[in-house]
């Protein structure tokens, strides 16, 4: 690499700063606003952090349904991840190992389904849930989330499984392993990064989803965090402090996961794992 002149270097650093401020300022503002009291939120404006108070968080956790929504979000996300992992591993593995006509159509349909916008699926799904008597339940939301995460899982894992040569498991099976044991002991460990990526993104899609939650859930105590937080908007009192505290708490698990698992994140993101 050739040396940059001082001017070029400062221009480059300037651009980096602009990029960082552009990407991070709203997040920064959300976090510092969540720690401010009403006086500093509405009267004394300052760009710097502080004054620091936990009032917003206390109010949020003690006097709203936030803890209930949190539990709901965890339940729904966990359920979605489990269903997705089991189903997508089975389907993706079968598609790569079985020989039958139209198997590429299966993969094609998955990719096609993955490109569906949530709202287009939400309307008919809700209608079906009403008919089944499942409307307004967490189960219905979990199933809805699987309509995005399952195609994603199959699509990503198909990419992983097809790279693993058949000889690996055949060798194991010659040694007396059953197909199942060969799969669990030999193939699965090799695709662990893929499985982990699918788990992370299924969690992420379920945790951040607003559209399905808006359509599927009506009862307050069954809402997940994004939909629940939305119901706090438009109340009589100005509650920006609490809303920012609520937002920060939703973002927190994502930021922590991102810090520790960024390799998987970047890999998944590059493969288009977050639709949108």
């Amino acid at each position, binding site marked *: 690499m050739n040396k940059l002149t001082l001017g070029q270097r400062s221009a480059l650093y300037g651009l980096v700063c602009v990029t960082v401020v552009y990407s991070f300022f709203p*997040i920064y503002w959300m976090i510092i606003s969540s720690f401010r009291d009403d006086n500093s939120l509405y009267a004394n404006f300052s760009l710097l952090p502080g004054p620091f108070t936990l009032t917003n968080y206390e109010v949020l956790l003690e006097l709203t349904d936030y803890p209930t929504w949190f539990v709901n979000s965890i339940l729904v996300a966990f359920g979605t991840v489990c269903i997705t992992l089991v189903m997508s591993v089975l389907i993706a593995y079968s598609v790569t190992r*079985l020989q039958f006509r139209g198997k590429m159509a299966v993969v094609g349909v998955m990719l096609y*389904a993955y490109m569906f916008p949530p709202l*287009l*699926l939400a309307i008919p799904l809700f209608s079906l849930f009403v008919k089944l008597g499942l409307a307004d339940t967490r189960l219905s939301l979990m199933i809805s989330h699987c309509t995005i995460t399952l195609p994603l899982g199959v699509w990503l894992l198909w990419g992983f499984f097809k790279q693993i040569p058949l000889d690996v498991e055949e060798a194991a*099976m010659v040694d007396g392993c059953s*197909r199942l044991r060969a799969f669990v002991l030999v193939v699965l460990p090799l695709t662990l990064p893929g499985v982990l990526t699918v788990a992370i993104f299924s969690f992420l899609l379920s945790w951040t989803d607003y559209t399905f939650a808006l359509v599927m859930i009506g009862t307050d105590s069954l809402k997940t965090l994004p939909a629940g937080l939305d119901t706090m908007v438009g109340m009589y009192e100005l509650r920006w402090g609490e809303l920012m505290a609520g937002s920060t708490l939703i*973002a927190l698990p994502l930021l922590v996961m991102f810090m520790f698992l960024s390799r998987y994140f970047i890999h998944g993101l590059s493969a288009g794992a977050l639709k949108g």
Partner: protein
Amino acid sequence: MRGERVLYSIFSVAIALTALLILYPAYHALELSFQDLDSFISKPVWIGFGNYADVLAMPEFWNALGRGLVFSGTTIALQIVLGIGFAMLLDTAIPAKPLVRGITVLPYLLPTIIVALTFQWMLDSTVGVFTQFVRLFGYSYIPWGESGTVAMTVVIVLSVWIWTPFVTLAFLAGLQAVPGELYEAARVDGASAWQRFWHITMPQLRPVLTVVLLLRAIWMFNKFDIIWLTTRGGPLQATEHLPILAYRKTFEMYEVGQGAAVSAISFVILSVLILFYFYFFPLDEKE
């Protein structure tokens, strides 16, 4: 091979469940669009293409379609320009690169509700941080609640902020695949930075550009949550595009059949784009 039968049966069950989960709702959406329904519990009446005729005769539909094109066209163009810019920046030798890359990707991970709320707070007409900022230039506030153009600009800016990282990452991967020798050769030939970008980088990035363009088009055209959370389609329908029209028809006016017809039309438009995608990028089992 041994165990094939088991594998086949597992596969059949899994695929049947998936079909039930994805294809059946898609079929049901079409079914709804041919029915007259004023709620989800009323008895459906088959009316053929009645809903489509009604929807296509509504000026709201055409307005919404137009707005959707403006919204998706603008956001895609801006995302691509910005995304290429960020990718080039991240591809050079900058300090703390992983950190900067991580921060650039962050907006993409955030739930839309958070982005919508945070920007609304920043745009608050009396104490928002953007409001304080524009006051330095003599404006009193940003009228995104009353001016249709400003509201549209705001949802576009938000969408660009959230979804540009997708483009950045895609181009970053593309750039890293460009062989360094090409640049060396060009430099020896005395090509300027702009010439190098235009004659080497861009041609190398063309396949990435096609993917990104198609995927962005597929996803931006049907974006619902960010607009709904920020403006609810207002003011005076200024940001109402097809998905919002479909939602309002279905869940506010309870013209369920018409809502489904609007969705079905979006679905057809979407399918054309997806078929293009499959045409350009056929599935390859070997790779």
